């Protein structure tokens, strides 16, 4: 099986096969001998060329996106069938490069105050909204230049992580 795996800026081409009771992986042309034992539903111990890792791979519930916990780090990963990824690329469908035009609640909390209204132009770093969570006031700032298209929540409202707060249109 051949996969295309993306972590932050890096994209890896990984091929894996099961041969004579061993897993053999090839990553960007390098062969890696793999030994893996499940420790539970999502956790495994893996030996990659005899290097030892305890990993926890969790599916994020939507397509291709997983989270791996390894060496004290939480790492978001996109994994796809390699051929499919290539097809999508040709078709210009690479979803992961698309700019995010929505602001979702980065944590559960209480919306204290909006610093913008619909139609406002914001510059990168401008405060958008203040959310109280875990007794701290957190100022959520704009990740880039944009125009506020719609606001989907209001002051005093409780939000869950991932709830839509507002939408932008690209400032182009």
């Amino acid at each position, binding site marked *: *099986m051949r*996969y295309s*795996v993306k*972590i*932050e800026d*890096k994209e*890896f081409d*990984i091929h*894996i096969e*099961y041969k004579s009771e061993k*897993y053999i*992986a090839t*990553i960007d042309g390098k062969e*890696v001998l*793999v030994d*893996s034992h*499940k420790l539970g539903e*999502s*956790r*495994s111990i*893996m030996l*990659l060329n005899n*290097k030892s*890792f*305890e*990993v*926890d*791979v*969790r599916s994020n519930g939507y397509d291709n996106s*997983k989270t*791996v*916990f*390894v*060496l*004290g*780090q*939480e*790492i978001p*990963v996109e*994994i796809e069938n390699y051929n499919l990824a290539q097809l999508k690329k040709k078709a210009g469908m690479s979803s992961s490069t698309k700019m995010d035009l929505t602001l979702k609640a*980065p*944590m*559960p*909390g209480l919306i204290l105050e909006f610093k913008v209204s619909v139609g406002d132009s914001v510059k990168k770093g401008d405060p958008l909204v203040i959310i*109280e*969570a*875990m*007794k*701290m*006031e*957190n100022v959520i700032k704009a990740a880039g230049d944009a125009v506020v298209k719609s606001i989907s929540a209001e002051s005093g409202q409780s939000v869950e*992580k991932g709830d839509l707060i507002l939408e932008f249109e690209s400032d182009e």
Partner: protein
Amino acid sequence: MKKIKKILIANRGEIAVRIIRACRDIGITSVAVFSDADASAYHVRMADEAYHIGASPSSESYLVHDNIIKATKDSGSDAIHPGYGFLAENATFAQRCIDENIIFIGPKPETIALLGDKLEARKVAIASDMPLVPGCEFDNENMEDALSKASEIGYPILIKAAAGGGGKGMRVVDKPEDFKESLKRASSEAISAFGDGRVYIEKYLLRPRHIEIQILTDQHGNGIHLNERECSIQRRHQKLIEESPSPVMTPELRKKMGDAALRICKETNYVGAGTVEFMVDEDMSFFFLEVNTRLQVEHPVTELVTGVDLVKEQIAVAEGAKLTLAQDDIGINGHAIECRICAEDPQQNFMPCTGTLNNYRLPAGPGVRVDSGVVIYSEVPIYYDPMIAKMVVWGKDRTEAIERCKRALEEYRVSGLKTTIGFCRVVMDNKKFVSGDISTAFINEEYPNHNFVLLSDELKEQAALAVAVDTFINERKIRLDEESNQNKKSEWKNHYRKQAVKRLGGNS
């Protein structure tokens, strides 16, 4: 002297667990209290007894004086340990305890009130001959007065809550244009955190160290200090990494700061454990910051290098015992570093996270102590402080402590939410940190944009491989299961075919 037999711990999380451990270590029965969200929390499991005190928001449980007092009476506890935060520096509550004939493990209400008001504390500090950073109070209702006083002191300015603590209600202002907005925010945060919106301003030192002196005094006028802690690695004015001793401390400066700390204790008739916080400028001159009239989060680094159990000492002092330790008994054995493990995303400006700890395994072995408020499968609720644990390491010197700290951070296993573990690991490799060249500006100077480069290219490659292998194994299992089902189906088909043939009169 009254022996305490049962202590109610009016707190939660790691500090409640820490105090329960001290109680057990001296044979005192421990009583936990819990809100709805904490019904199966670790501190409840650890305690000898536990009482429900209300709904999840702390304003409906951990902060409700009546509920805490009721649980204390119901459980027959002699004393209350408030931990830090919540009611720890609440003079009204401390007074209530006295009125109800309950021992409050902490200083007298009047001391708490006096030192808790940062403006009053400044006056006491002056009376105690302590050096102070230039600053002043102003009429909170009169913005023009505030602005002009800020200009007199000169920007950058630090706005602080009079009732403040723990970085809440604190704002740095770089230029006059931002002053009004920051004042408003600081004041509103102060109201929601302390119910007191008064703020004052101080000159903001650009690269100070935060160094504090641990003190311990009894009811008989005896007092000692237990060396310093360096707590300069901070984000949002909250400490993240602390150590003892400070890498820049000299015996002379330690004595000077220790003496100053004991002077203010004397001036305020201080009783119990407390911390006198200082800022130390680049030329090693030091300024009084504030007194925390309670046990400090970072007290374990002091415990590890002095061998003194501060919670036990607090309890002994509260019983009325004389200090058994003299200043000469306090040495410095090796070096200790504490990392605060918070449910936060360092890359997103240390934004708090919540979730379930699907995996949670503490580092252990030589020189590692973890005070954790959670265990595997614990939920980290939204209602409380994001600090879930403290990892403290000891080494024979700072080098050994740093190396051990790296090891222990790598050994820590958490899945289910983001933490500060990776951030702390990165700091342990930072050349300035390793050389001891730190200040409260460390994080902003070394990691502008909070881009900590937590992932090396090698780790990315390994993580990618791990996910691919895991996916492959899962897909292969599904395929094999399906095939085996297919085979079963074909067996059935064959079976029916044979039956059919039989029915048709065939011979096999």
